[in-house]
Structures are given as C-alpha cells and as structure tokens.
C-alpha cells in the first residue's frame, strides 16, 4: 500500500471550522481512487472527533492512528 510511500493528497483544513472539515474530508475521499491515501491536517477541535468517526462510519480505513501534532490533528485515511 501507499502507506509507507507517503500520501497521494493532503487536505489542509487549518483554520476551517465545523462542519466544513467533515464535509471536505468526505467529499475528497469520494473523489479519490480506491486505495489512495489522504493526509488530513485539521485544527478545529470538534473535527478531532467528527472527522474520524464519520470516515469510519462510511467504511473508510485508517492507514495509521491519528496523530496529535500540537494544536492540530493529522489523519491518514485510505479512500
């Protein structure tokens, strides 16, 4: 998998407030080819919960556990 090779896309959501982080993440994943890796950078605290939960609820798989990076979270989601 591309997990080791680095992400195919990065979604930079820094500064964006809810609900746009979830909406953007799900829309981006839908537009990607199956198996591609999305890297999400987000700093809206509500998105720390709703982005991973909604991605999981739709059956997407996380390539690795979420990373807390200072006031940001990083997600690695397989489309």
């Amino acid at each position, binding site marked *: 998998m591309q997990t080791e090779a680095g992400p195919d896309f990065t979604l930079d959501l820094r500064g964006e407030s809810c609900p*746009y982080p979830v909406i953007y993440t799900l829309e981006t994943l839908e537009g990607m080819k199956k198996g591609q890796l999305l890297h999400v950078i987000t700093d809206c605290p509500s998105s720390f919960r709703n982005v991973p939960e909604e991605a999981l609820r739709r059956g997407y798989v*996380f390539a690795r556990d979420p990373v807390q990076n200072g006031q940001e979270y990083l997600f690695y989601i397989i489309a």
Partner: protein
Amino acid sequence: MTAHSQPRRSLLNRYWHPLPTLLIAGALSALYFGLTGTVWAVTGEFTRLGGQMLHLFGVDTSGWGYFDLVKIKGTTLTRSDGWIVWGMFAGALVMVLLNNNFRIRVPHQKRRFAQGLLGGVIAGFGARLAMGCNLAAFFTGVPQFSVHAWIFIVGTGVGTFAGTRIITRGWWKGRPRLSAGYVRPTAPRGGRIQPILGAGLAGAYAALTLWFFLSGQTMLGMGALAGALFGVLVERGQICFTSAFRDLWIMGRAVMAKAIIAGMAVSSLLTILAIGVYGIPPITQVAALGTVVGGLLFGVGIVMASSCETGMMFRLMEGQMLYLAVFIGNIAGATLLAYSWDHGVYNLLVAGGQKINLVGLVGPVGAINLTLALLAILYAFIVVREKKHLKAGAKSAPVPTHKGMQDHAN
C-alpha cells in the same frame, strides 16, 4: 474512548463524550434552577449588553418595551445572568489553556466572516424573538415545561434543514486547500506557558467566586460558579446544538442530538421535583407566532454561522476567529430585535400569544409524562433518520477492518 485519546490522560486533559457531558449539564441546570429559581441562559444577557452599548453611544432606550421585558439593571458584572456568560467564557478558556489548545485559527476563505456575521445576526434576532436560544427555549426550556420550547424546537428543526440546503451549495461552501502529495503540518511549539496561564486563571476566578459568596453576593457567586462549570462542560464535550440538527440533516450524524435529548430528560425529571416538592414556580415564556418564526430564523442563522450562541462561546475561546464575527452578529441581532419589538414585531408576532405551561395544563405528573413521551418520539425520529442516512450513504466496505481505529472510534 474518543478518537484522540492517547495512552493515559487525566480527566481534564481529554475530551468527553457528549452523552455523559450533557447528562451532567442537564442535572446541573436543574440544580441551578432549584437553588436560584432562574435558568441557564445567555441571550437575554446578550440583549442587555446590546442595550447598554446603545447607552454608551447616547441612545435613550427608556421607552423600549423589550428592554423592560428583559430588565436592564446594574452592569453585566452585577447580574447573575452576566456571570453565567463570563463564567462560561472563563471555564472554557481555562480548559483550552490547560490543554495547550489555544491558537488563533483564521479561515483561509474570507467569505466565512461574512457568513458568520450574517448568520449571527439572524440567529440573535430569532432567538430573542422566541424568548431564548438553544438554552432557555430548548435545553432549559423543555425542562421548565414551557410549551414555547417545543414550538421553538420544531421551528429550529425546519430552519436548520433549510440552512443546510444553503451551506452545502458550492458558492457558500467554497473549496478546500487540497494538494497532491504531502504538506507539512505546523511544527508543535513548547506547550508550557498555556497550562500555567490556565491554572492561574482558574485560581483567580475561583478566588473571585469565593469572594462573591463570602461578601454575601450569593446570586453572583452562583452565577459565576454555574457559568464556569457550564463553560467547562461545553468545551470538554464540544457541545454544539447547531451540529445536533445540522449534522443529522447533512450526514445522519446523531451523537449530539441523542445526547441533548438524554440531557433534557434528566433535567426534566429533576426539575419536576423542584417544582412539585419545593414549590418553585416554573419559568414560562410566551408561545406565539413569534416562537415559530423565531425558531425558523434561529435555525437558519445558526447553520449559516456554524454555531449557536453557546457553541460560539467556547470556540471563540479556542481562538477560532470566525466566532468573533458570530458574537458581534448575535449581539447586533438581539439588539435589532429589541428595536423592532415596538415597531411592529410585537403586535404582529407576539401580541396574540399566551404563556402556556404543561404543569398548569395537565399537572406535574402529566407534564413529566408528556415531556418524556415527546422526548422519546423525538429520539425515535432521530434514530430512524440516522439509519436511513447511513444506508443511503454507505460505502462498499461497510465494516472498518483496521483494528486500532475501531478501538479509537468506540
């Protein structure tokens, strides 16, 4: 556990699930009512703040009917409702700082500020037209058995639905920054100073609260204490009434909506005791055409602004700059309502209304039974909506296979 729990963290250093958070908030608001005879509310105070700002600019509001209704006395620092507001800000800020989570967060799409301001004005206007926001006309209105809260909920439900039809349009939503490959996240900076500031603020605020009690200003002390606790709860639980409606409509996400209903059920049970056993009169607001219109406007406004009046408060403390526009909008909207009150709004939308309380209508036992039944119906509606949405939007792989992430989501 939450999606962001790291190995072992103290209770104050992780986010709380909305369900226990709202159960506590519901119990706390009933207790606050039992002790003070008033409810957890914020927008009434926003209206007073707006009025007093007008006074600063030399506007004479002595003849304004709405300000007589919400009673402007003293300053925001000598009102217990004022301390609910400042306490919520303080409690939320302390939690943000203790968690080294403050950061100036600025949306890269400048349209968000216009959206926040416009939505804030509409929500502020609508909330005051209905005599309360998601608190007094909703979370703390239902447990007072005031019929206006139920009318407001229906109005807000329809309004938020309409709002989601607007904000999911391309011209409103805009485009994210999406790039091929890897983009470097921000290098984390030393996280020592924020927790120290947070502890200092907590200490100073606790001393002030104690002083209120010791100097006999019990109501101010109660407001300051309850406000701070509410602030801690909404920030740690990321309690967002807007998301409860909006995310249900957009993506069938029901975590917040279910938790709010559970919180209101607990609050109603405790409040009926305060009313029935201790004889404290429930707080009833006028139910009128204005309640429906107010709920609709509030619903549209909070979705446009990405937040209601309470969500705005903790997000502003996180440094989300969008919510400065929302806060200004909320106060402006509430003040605009106060102005229009005597210029047609009262006569058109409120004059024919009546204060109706379920306790007066069907007695305390009937009131609690009816309220719990209505909450159960609302809960069932949400569950149906959640299931339906998931079926329609489910991807081909229904079950996540990555074990680690499964644990994270639960």
